[in-house]
């Protein structure tokens, strides 16, 4: 047999991995550059299955990359750009040291720069791939666009982020693809369905940031660098998919409306353009003039093996979606100055509503407070001094709740100064056995089209809840010892006999027996199960116990929430009673 026998750590899995330091040396990059490269190219470490083997017998904590990944990085043109940049920095420092200002200028003019287009294309070979990875990009861009224009990072980056974010919002409005909104304590979550892909992002509330010191902004900036490139290309493609111009142009008619009445220019053209765009109040110009025949009925192509029922449900879903998209169509909103303008304008416009605000608040207001055609005014004050007849004064939560409920909710709960109903997360889909808050149950009933009296609804909800509880309790009881059940039985029997004594009416014994039998059967079954569990193999038993533990914990948590709710409700009721009594007295 030919060939040398390979040594211990020169074969097998040890050859597939490379430590971070070795990878860095192989690429001849400094650690920050290596980090940047990994971020841009989307290379992440791998955990080897046998760490000790890969680590050449040592158990020290090390980061491992796949050798294939690092070899792939070797061919990256960006690496050369990094080196050029290093040389540039060296030259610049030298020129500064010698006070050769003309050289400094010349060097600065010829600063090496690189583009990330090819990396975007390489990481996301298809457009759908890019859409799937858009969540982080959007959240990051929205965060960066709120940064102050000083310090932390380049002003250009912040401006670019703002521009891209606004463009994306305008796309969502134009395509009416927003689906869910959620006001959390962290920020506002949005979910849009872009070309069939759910895209979720979070925006912070508009306050100045308290910049933390233990955050490495270089890492964030590198991510943003990549994300802006990605988002730019995605925006371009999205705009073109809707026949919109990119970079976006405000529609001609709207533009005229938007022009401030005063003759003086509001700001520099480039600035005012972005601001007008970010006002989100005007529609965008199209490449091809929109025709009203756009809304062509979809042709139906029955899929093989699909029953009529499935077709029907699909059709219904489609209809519901269309209805949802036109939720606010025909409504005219006015935003008071204390409500967050941008999120509300965005949400209302995404569902077809018209929106305006005070002229002094922001550019792009289309009508005045006194406009009689306003149907809803969004107010976030305890009370409104001058109310105009013919419009609802509502708190902002109404808009968000209505969007999540896919229908315009009754307005009574949302009048200014009223204690608001809880704001529920639209991202939670309750499975069987999960705790469902009663508000959600009410909402589900409403969506089904039932709209009975509220109180009965509540009771229903409670009943359902109780049923659930009972079931859960039963489940739990199974695990309890039979002795306790026997005790219960005894108690029941005693109660029965007592009731017998108390009343002359006889209770037939047959029924009791029947229940007994059922009980006994249940007991027997549970005991059989317990005995069978005893005979399980050790490994399976472990797994079984783990699964059962998880299930029980879930039930326990749900029960805890239900109990808390019940306690809260009773406390509330008592308070109400007390206040009533006090009023009567």
């Amino acid at each position, binding site marked *: 047999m030919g060939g040398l026998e390979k040594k211990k750590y020169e074969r097998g899995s040890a050859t597939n991995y490379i430590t971070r330091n070795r990878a860095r040396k192989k690429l001849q990059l400094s650690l920050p550059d290596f980090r940047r490269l990994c971020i841009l190219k989307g290379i992440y470490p791998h955990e080897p299955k046998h760490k000790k083997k890969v680590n050449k017998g040592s158990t020290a904590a090390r980061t491992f990359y796949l050798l294939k990944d690092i070899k792939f990085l070797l061919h990256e043109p960006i690496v050369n750009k990094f080196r050029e940049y290093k040389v540039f920095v060296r030259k610049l420092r030298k020129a500064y040291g010698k006070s050769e200002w003309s050289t400094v200028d010349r060097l600065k003019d010829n600063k090496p720069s690189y583009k990330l287009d090819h990396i975007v294309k390489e990481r996301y070979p298809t457009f759908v791939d890019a859409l799937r990875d858009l969540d982080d990009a959007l959240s990051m861009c929205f*965060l960066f666009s709120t940064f102050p224009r000083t310090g932390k990072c380049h002003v250009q980056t912040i401006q670019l982020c703002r521009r891209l974010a606004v463009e994306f919002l305008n796309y969502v409005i134009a395509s009416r693809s927003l689906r869910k909104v*959620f006001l959390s304590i962290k920020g506002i979550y949005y979910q849009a369905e872009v070309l069939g892909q759910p895209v*979720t992002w979070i925006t912070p509330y508009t306050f100045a940031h308290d910049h933390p010191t233990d955050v490495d902004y270089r890492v964030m900036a590198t991510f943003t660098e990549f994300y802006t490139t990605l988002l730019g290309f995605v925006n371009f493609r999205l705009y073109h998919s809707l026949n919109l111009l990119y970079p976006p142009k405000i529609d001609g008619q709207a533009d005229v409306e938007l022009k401030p009445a005063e003759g003086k220019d509001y700001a520099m053209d480039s600035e005012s353009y972005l601001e007008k765009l970010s006002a989100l109040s005007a529609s965008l110009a199209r490449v091809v003039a929109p025709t009203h025949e756009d809304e062509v009925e979809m042709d139906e192509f029955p899929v093989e093996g699909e029953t009529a029922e499935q077709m029907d449900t699909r059709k219904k879903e489609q209809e519901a979606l269309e209805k949802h998209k036109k939720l606010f169509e025909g409504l005219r909103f006015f935003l008071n100055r204390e409500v967050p303008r941008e999120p509300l304008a965005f949400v209302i416009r995404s569902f077809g509503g018209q929106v305006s605000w005070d002229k002094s608040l922001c550019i792009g207001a289309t009508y005045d407070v006194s406009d009689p055609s306003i149907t809803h005014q969004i107010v976030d004050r305890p009370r409104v001094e001058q109310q105009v007849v013919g419009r609802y004064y509502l708190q902002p939560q109404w808009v968000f709740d209505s969007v999540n409920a896919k229908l315009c909710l009754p307005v009574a709960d949302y009048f200014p100064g009223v204690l608001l109903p809880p704001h529920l997360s639209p991202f939670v889909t309750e499975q069987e056995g999960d705790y469902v808050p009663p508000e959600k149950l009410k909402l589900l009933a409403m969506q089904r089209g039932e709209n009975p009296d509220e109180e009965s609804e509540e009771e229903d909800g409670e009943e359902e809840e109780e049923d659930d509880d009972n079931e859960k309790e039963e489940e739990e009881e199974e695990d309890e010892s039979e002795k306790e059940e026997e005790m219960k039985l005894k108690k029941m029997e005693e109660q029965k006999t007592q009731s017998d004594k108390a009343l002359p009416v006889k209770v037939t014994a047959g029924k009791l027996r029947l229940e007994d039998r059922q009980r006994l059967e249940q007991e027997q079954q549970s005991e059989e199960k317990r*005995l069978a569990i005893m*005979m399980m193999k050790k490994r399976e038993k472990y797994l079984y116990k783990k699964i059962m533990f998880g299930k029980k914990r879930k039930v326990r948590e749900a029960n805890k929430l239900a109990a808390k709710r019940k306690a809260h409700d009773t406390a509330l009721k008592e308070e109400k009673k007390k206040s009533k009594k006090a009023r009567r007295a």
Partner: protein
Amino acid sequence: PCPPLTPLPSAPLQDIRNTVGNIPMEWYQDFPHIGYNLEGKRIYKPIRNKDELDMFLEKMENPDYWRTVQDKMTGADIKLTDEQVDLVHRLQKGQFGDVHFNPYEPAVDFFTHEVMIHPVTNRPADKRSFIPSLIEKEKVSKLVHAIKMGWIKPRKPKDDTPTYYDLWAHEDPNSILGRHKMHVPAPKMKLPGHEESYNPPPEYLLSEEEKLAWEQQEPAERKLNFVPQQYRCLRAVPAYSRFIHERFERCLDLYLCPRQRKMRVNVDPEDLIPKLPKPRDLQPFPTTQALVYRGHTSLVRCLSISPSGQWLVSGSDDCTVRFWEVCTARCMKTLPVGGVVKSVAWNPNPTVCLVAICVEQSVLLVNPCLGDKLLYGATDQLLESYVEPEEERVQPVQWVMATVEEHSKGVRVLVQHSKAVKQVTWHGKGDYFASVVSDNSNMQVLIHQTSKRWSQNPFRKSKGLVQCVLFHPIRPYFFVATQRYVRVYNLLKQELTKKLMTNCKWVSSMAIHPGGDNIICGSYDSKLAWFDLDLSTRPYQLLRHHKKALRSVAFHKHYPLFASGSDDGTVIVCHGMVYNDLLQNPLLVPVKVLKGHVLTLDLGVLDVLFHPTQPWVFSSGADGTVRLYT
């Protein structure tokens, strides 16, 4: 230093001018003259014959002494004039020498911001201002050359705004490489639940204790990374202080966390439960507690039953042995023995009515005098028919006849050992019995023959602390359980046939299937090992049914049942079917968990025993009772 004094205006009178020039005057120190005048004659130093005293007198007397200086060039004394003194004073103060010079004259703007029509100076322009500079030409030509050679690149038009185009215009299916398929996309961020809402339902808010618990937890351990909070209106919601942190942590996760595809176990837990025959189909087995035998005041350590199944004997820590009638739970007889009873064993021979009882260092052979009078009479006769052999044999134990008093109680023979006896067990025929002594030597196990009153020590060497011993029901085998092993000896061939590994830490008890091919071993680490002697020396199955240490195990004589009693107070009855077909493995199914004994002193069930004919099981416990389950 003072500037050299200029020739004084008073000098022309004398006109002594030195011509040596500006040289150090020390050079003329040793000469009588000090230089040369204009005519070339020597200038002699003035005759100085002043000594210190003269100098002093002059200083005192001459009022102008302070303004007299010596001219180094001529050596003559010169009196400074008033103007000169004034000049010296002014220079010392750092003022201008000229008295009339005004340093603070009003500034006259020479060049003004207004463009003047005339040049400031009337100087004609140079010639060089009309001809091109050669140096500049050279520099320009160098730059031109550099540009031509491409060393200097022309300034690129600065355009920071990135240009976007349709990147995915030609989606090429070939561009999806292997690495894209291998790529593990980062998991998306978890979507927020109801508790993250600014106005959550009240049940999601944390109570005071929960909040405290949340604060005390490590940040990594917390289930929620925020405290749910309720605000009355949207206006009141503040900024979230950890927003940037969270984005940053997400960034770190994206580029630092190793990614891995993990297969989720998606098993229905019901599928994991083994399919066993229903206990109902495996009847009969004991299911309920039928009788409780009360009477003992302390732990009941051991039980034994007569071969007919009518009488039960129990030994307890209260130094008595009690005989019970099984069906009525009546205590027929109480035998005080004056010591803790460690073990009792009823002779399995139905024609003999004899019970072996371990009390401290001796084994008592007791005739309980219960049941058929003929039977126990015959037993007495049998014992009395013993004839002492001629020659005295050396025995490891002493066989002593009972005294009259003891005889009246039922005790017939005492076998006195050297140390405390902890177990006694009969051979199936009823003539031999074995006793275990708690000792560390080779004298731990002794085999006794009743008819000949003859004992022997089967082992030459000790193999560890013997826990219990057992006779094979049919074949001449003898089982010895030490802490971790069970050794099987052939008594005829006098050799070790097998050594069973129990995989337990400490064997407590052992029982043998009536067929003789299967053994169960209970251990203090709450395991029960089932051995198939034909199969291997390792356990066929290790059952971990009990939660605490096993104290005893038992097989039923006829029914395929075995039971184990444990410190957790339960007796577990299992169906243990052994098939005649050698290819079929035994079937073990737990059929019933019997509870009843109360835990006392952390001890539960101490002994279990099956009825010889009925599917009944007895158990004795630390609570001083014996219970019968039927």
